[in-house]
């Protein structure tokens, strides 16, 4: 019954389900092509403008093709704080990932496998914190951090990012652990492993794909975080990309060509990275919610 239904189709002369007539097929292709163009255009445009040598080229883009150059990229890499920002971004995103995923993994496992008093409450709290508007935390965080001297420090930003990453990753990993058969845990226990030993030696290695997705999500979220980074980072050599790119406008007199080049340099590696794992991210994102 669960085998592919299309194999039973040949007895019917007309086309199989899901196969389109010629008109519908052309219509589908046209719609999808237009949608793809809309999806691609802003990025393509950014790429195109980044090749224009003059800062006003975006106003008469027709001229760019004739004088396209990589000078903007060279300028950005040699004359701006690009590498400082890269370093900051990596420290913040990497730190958030490491810290967030590590603490989320054990929680995800405990919530998935063990029923203990407070289990449901914890799940609720995890879900609820995902709905927190940044406006609720940003003011008290700022006040607390300025007392502790954590404003303008990467460590402070890592802590702040963890408020969103940790609950989310716990949910995501709980969903993943749920897919690993409990018989494995039982076998581990039989062999004399403690619950923590089972988790560490048996489950964690099996959950590697789930951990990878959580890590990726944590990294990307911290990478692109705007609100806290704009508020808590003051020194421009400590900026992350999300803040650095903004500062371009004032510092370089709205040199859109340089900004476009910077944006492209930032976007390309992340985009490639993202493409590689996007399917797993969707599964993880919705699986957590469906089971709630």
């Amino acid at each position, binding site marked *: 019954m669960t085998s*592919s239904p*299309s194999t039973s189709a040949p007895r019917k002369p007309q086309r*199989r*389900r*899901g196969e*389109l007539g010629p008109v519908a097929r052309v219509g*589908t*292709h046209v719609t*999808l092509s237009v*949608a*793809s163009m*809309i*999806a691609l255009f*802003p990025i393509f*445009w*950014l790429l195109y*403008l980044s090749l224009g040598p003059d800062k006003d080229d*975006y106003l008469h883009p027709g001229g760019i093709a004739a004088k396209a150059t990589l000078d903007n990229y060279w300028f950005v890499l040699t004359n701006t704080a690009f590498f400082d920002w890269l370093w900051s971004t990596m420290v913040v995103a990497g730190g958030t990932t490491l810290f967030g995923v590590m603490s989320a993994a*054990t929680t995800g496992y*405990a919530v998935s496998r*063990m*029923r203990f*008093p407070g289990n449901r409450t914890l799940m609720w709290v995890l879900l609820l*914190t*995902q*709905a*927190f*508007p*940044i*406006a*609720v*935390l940003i*003011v*008290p*965080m*700022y*006040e607390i951090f*300025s007392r502790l001297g954590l404003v303008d420090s990467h460590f402070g930003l890592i*802590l702040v990012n963890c*408020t969103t990453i940790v*609950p989310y990753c716990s949910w995501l990993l709980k969903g993943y652990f749920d897919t690993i058969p409990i018989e494995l845990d039982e076998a581990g226990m*039989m062999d004399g492993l*403690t*619950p*923590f030993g089972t988790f560490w030696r048996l489950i964690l290695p099996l959950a590697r794909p789930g951990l990878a997705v959580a890590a990726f999500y944590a990294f990307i979220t911290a990478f*692109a975080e*705007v*609100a806290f980074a704009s*508020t808590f980072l003051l020194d421009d050599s400590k900026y992350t990309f999300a803040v650095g790119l903004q500062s371009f406008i004032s510092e370089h007199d709205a040199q859109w060509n340089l900004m*476009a080049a910077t*944006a492209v340099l*930032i*976007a390309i590696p*992340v985009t490639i990275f993202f493409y590689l794992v*996007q399917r797993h991210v*969707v599964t993880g*994102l*919705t699986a957590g*919610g*469906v089971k709630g």
Partner: protein
Amino acid sequence: MTLTAPAPAAETPRSRRRAPGPFQRMRDSYLRYWYAYAMVAPVVIVLGVLVGYPLARGFYLTLTDANSLNSARTIGVNTIDATYKFIGLDNYAEILWGPAAYDRFWSHFVWTIVWTVTCVVLHYVIGLGLAMLLNQRLRGRVAYRLLLILPWAVPTFVTVFAWRIMLADAGVINTMLGTIGLAEPSWLEDPTWQRTAAIMVNTWCGVPFMMLSLLGGLQSIDENLYEAAEIDGASAWQRFRHVTLPGLSSVSSTVVLLGVIWTFNQFAIIFLLFGNTAPDAQILVTWAYRLGFGQQPRDFAMSAAYGVLLLAILIVFTSFYYRWLKRNDQLA
């Protein structure tokens, strides 16, 4: 018989699925709780310190008149102690029914609701349309899918800059509109167009996620259902209405809830698109940020009070949403 007799201590996670054996009961010991608590401790501590304490602190701030002039601060080597005082619920009263309540809170509230509803409807409808097109046997569907998720793959702060360049007065969008003889609105200055631009950009950013999630949902619907409906003579619309939509309901309810929460809290797009320039296009989140960090003196108490109100709105919405889902499930 003995197998079906429920053990009283069957408090295990799998108790719903399996009858507990003696091994399971053995694990129901104090020791197991101990391990569970040790494992959740890091997250509980992290959340307690990083969310719980600031939240309590933030709530306290809303009951004071704290701003950047009377908070504790350091000037050079001198540390000045905080001098703000407790004023009770005055901040909330001022926001909700003070003299400037309409101008500051309610107008933003209405716009936030309009923004959220419009964006989520657009996300869902466009996302579902594209997902259904992609869910057919079609040459190149993998390629289309990869192209269509691009807006999701690129970090928001990059794409919003791309849009800013495109939406500028003499940018490519107005040039194109001009060549086909349409009006060239000033997207980034005129309030109505600012709002339109914000919705446009957010829709562009949000559709890929909806599309991918709904595509996953569509693929999990049993094809036999469609075949059966077709044999019974159901029209395409009837099949959509009675097979596709119910088949998607669990995915839909999740992504719509996530969509509402994310859109309601969407900070980056409006903040990066307009900076500090567009008072009318600010939603409550960006407005709260602006009160606390985008003006001098910084009004910490008011900003925090907005934050608490936002959270309250979301909690009310989520619980109604859950209740509504439950009721519908029972009816179905």
